[in-house]
Every structure is written in C-alpha cells, then in structure tokens.
C-alpha cells in the first residue's frame, strides 16, 4: 500500500497507486454535497436581506458596505424564494458539514493524512519553489514525476486554506449568527466584531470557498477528469505519462 511514493521509488507512468484513503473519499463526497447545498440555500437566505454591514447592528437605514444582487432561482435552494425552507436546508446541512469535517479531521490525524500529505514544509513556500510551481501549473504540469502521488505546493496550500481556514470560518461565523449562541458564547461574536460583521465574513468566506470549488473543478478537468474522479471514488489513481 504505497500511498505516497518516496522519490527514490517513483512509480512509472501508467501504474496505478492507491492515492486516497476511505476516510478522505467519504468525507470528500459528503462534504461536496453539503457545500453544494449550503451555498444554494445560503444564497436563498441572502435574498431575504441582500445587504451586508460591519459592526454589531445593520438594517435598512444603516450603511451597507455591499449590496448583493438578487440571486436567481437556478442558483438557490429552493428554486423560488422561500426563506423558511432555505433555512431548513441550511441548518440541517450545517450539521452534516460541521460533524463530517470534525470526523475527517480526527481520522486524518489518526491515519496521518494531514501530517503526510498536507503538511506545508518550509522548503515548499520559498518564493523560488512557489514560482516554479506556478510555472508548472501554467504549462498544465501538475505532478512532480519524482513524487507523482504527492500534492503540489499550490494544491496543498489551497486544500489547507479550504479545510483549516474557510470551512471552519464558515462554521464559526455561522454560529455567531445564532442569537442563542451569541448569549452562550459572547466571545465568539466579539471575535468577529459583532453579528453583522460575522455575517459579512460568513459571506466572504462562502465566496472564497466557491472560488476554490470552481478552480478545483477546472483543475480536475485539466489534470485528467476520469483518472481524478476514479481516484476519489475507488482510491486508485493512474500515474500520468509525460503529457498530463
């Protein structure tokens, strides 16, 4: 079971390696569905009051720093304006997303996925290495032939950003929107500078996560969609040849 090959034993192109463990694959798909529903239902909720503020309070007569568009029905859950149902979807899948992340984090510490595959080393983030990684991306080379199973640095950084920053931030700012939680954990709301600030940060984090999803899907397609899809379903990933 060579999950990530050592540089000295690089698997030759065309060979399959077991790249993603069960916990990773399970979480990936549960989370994909949850994120999809959270964004759709969240945009539905946004339509109820499409204005964002900074600070403790903010309503129609206060200054909004951002006026959002009215999200069309093909982007929202449900497909017509229904705040109650959008909230039902959102608050149910909030639990799915949060507890799935918690379970994935525990599993990935235990099976060392985080330490092995996502740890960003000092050498990874030198300007020279990042520049090289960027150039490789621009020529659509996503895998180090020496260690084809490993994530490249930009990939690692974007996964770390999504898993350890954006999704936790969405969960915490979401909790800070709850008036019950605000009374129970006032420090949480204050951490973000008030409920309306938390709501703004919630939206910004959602926008960034949407950006991640779009780039992620684009790169899956560029890197060889069938191979990438198979590896996230079965775990088995074929080491690409020179072209890909």
């Amino acid at each position, binding site marked *: 079971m060579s999950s990530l090959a050592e540089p000295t034993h690089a698997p030759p192109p065309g060979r399959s390696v077991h790249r993603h463990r069960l916990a990773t694959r399970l979480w990936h798909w549960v989370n994909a569905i949850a994120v999809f529903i959270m964004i759709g239902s969240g945009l539905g909720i946004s339509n109820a009051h499409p204005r964002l503020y900074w600070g403790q309070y903010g309503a129609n007569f206060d200054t909004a720093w951002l006026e959002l568009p009215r999200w069309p029905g093909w982007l929202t859950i449900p497909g017509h304006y229904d705040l109650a149902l959008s909230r039902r979807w959102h608050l149910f899948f909030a*639990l799915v997303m949060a507890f799935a992340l918690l379970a994935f984090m525990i599993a990935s510490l235990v099976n060392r996925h985080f330490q092995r595959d996502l740890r960003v080393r000092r050498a990874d983030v030198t300007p020279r290495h990042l520049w090289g990684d960027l150039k490789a991306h621009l020529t659509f080379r996503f895998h180090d032939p020496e260690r084809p199973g490993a994530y490249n640095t930009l990939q690692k950084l974007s996964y770390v950003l999504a898993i350890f920053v954006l999704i936790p931030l969405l969960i915490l700012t979401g909790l800070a929107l709850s008036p019950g939680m605000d009374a129970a954990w006032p420090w949480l709301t204050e951490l973000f500078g008030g409920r309306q600030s938390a709501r703004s940060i919630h939206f910004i984090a959602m926008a960034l996560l949407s950006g991640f999803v779009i780039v992620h899907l684009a790169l899956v397609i560029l890197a060889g969609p069938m191979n990438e899809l198979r590896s996230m379903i079965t775990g088995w990933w074929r080491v690409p040849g020179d072209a890909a």
Partner: protein
Amino acid sequence: MSVLLTRRRLVTGGALGAGALLAGCDRAIEVPAVRKILFTGEDMQRGLHRALTDRGALAREFSAAEVSPIFRSNGTRDPGTPAYAAMAAGGFASWRLAVTGLVNRPLSLSLAQLRSMPARTQITRHDCVEGWSAIGKWTGPMLGNVLKLADIRRDARYIVFRCADSIGGHRYYESIDLIDAFHPQTILAWGMNDAPLDVAHGAPVRLRVERQLGYKHAKYVMGIEAVASLAGIGQGKGGFWEDWVDYDWYAGI
C-alpha cells in the same frame, strides 16, 4: 480528440448534474419522509444548544451609544382593526392584558398596572430571521413576575401570546417554554428607547425574548395563556410563522 470529448462531456454532464441536484432538492422536499428528516434539523440544533450551552445565559446588553439610529419596524406595522384603532386613540387606557390558562389567579391588567410593576431596562440586539439586526432599549416588567403574580400552575409548560394583529387572515400568536418565560431578560416591554412603545413596534406591549429571532417577539400582546401543550392552538406548531410558513419554533438559531 477523445480526451477533449470526454472532458466536454464531463463538463456538460457536471453542469447538468449540478442543475439536476438543485432541482432534485426541490423535488426531494416534496417527499414527506425527506421533509420530515430535513425538519429534524431544528430538533438537533435545539438539542445541541441545550446540551452545550447555559440555558440561563444572558444576551449581551449594549451601551446607549450603540443603539441603532433608526430601529426599523417589520411584520405588522399597524394591526389596522377598528378595535385596535379605538384603543390606540384612547392611549390604550381601555387595553387589558388577560393572563389566563393554567394559572390559579387569572389577571386582567391595565397598562397603568403593568407600568407600576418593577421594570427592567435592557439595551439588546434584535435579530430578524431575514438577517438584519437593530439595537434598541426596552423597558417593562419581567414576564416571570407577571406569571408569579398570576400564580402559574405546575402543569403549565408553555406560555402562549395572543396578539391584536392578523397576517393573511390568521391571528398572530407565539409561544415560548417556561425556561425562556422566566429568563430575566424576557420582559413585557411597554417602553422603547425611553418613550412609550409606538404602534409600528407593537404598542402598547410587546414581548422581548432575547436569544431568539425577531418573529418570537410578539407585538400587540392582548393575552398571555399558560398551557400544557401547544396542540389545538392554531395549527399546533406554536406560532403564526411556525404554522403557516414553516419557521422553526425554536428560533435561537
């Protein structure tokens, strides 16, 4: 190029799949079992709140400098009935708060009587289910004191608030449990921002049940009823919005 074709097919397929999933959500919610599962989210959230947080925690109170310059009104801005208009014209001198149900001493309190009770003043944040917040200063007696005055019975479990306004032909009402009813910040507010409560904000008296969303804060309160169960009241879900629009009864989230 077969690779290109596959990619194109995958992108189209993916987009169609995403569209189908979105539409599927609308289709799925029509299935009673799915709807039921989705609606258990409220029970789970409530259960987690109750398990993980202090039920007596106080909502944050703000300073006078932090009050919203304009506190927007929402929902009913004037009940508009002749009976209410007549009460308002008379400065609510004829208004009576009926305290009934599972109490040993039913009450009928005038506004003057309610104002003569020891009052609590609190500057709190009002959070609408729509997402906006406004900070205001509220004054009124603690609901718990009114319930003690009425000598509430031990078999009471919920407090129901009957209101003077109707939406879409349905009388507005709300309900809370006894822990929230006896919470020190749960007051029957007759004052707002150092003035008598105005019509747009629920004159003469509205409920303040901090730690829950705006729709729980019943305006134009006419009656308070202590009950053992919410069944048989309205559609049985504990409030106007809960009955007709599927809002959560537990509005702490």
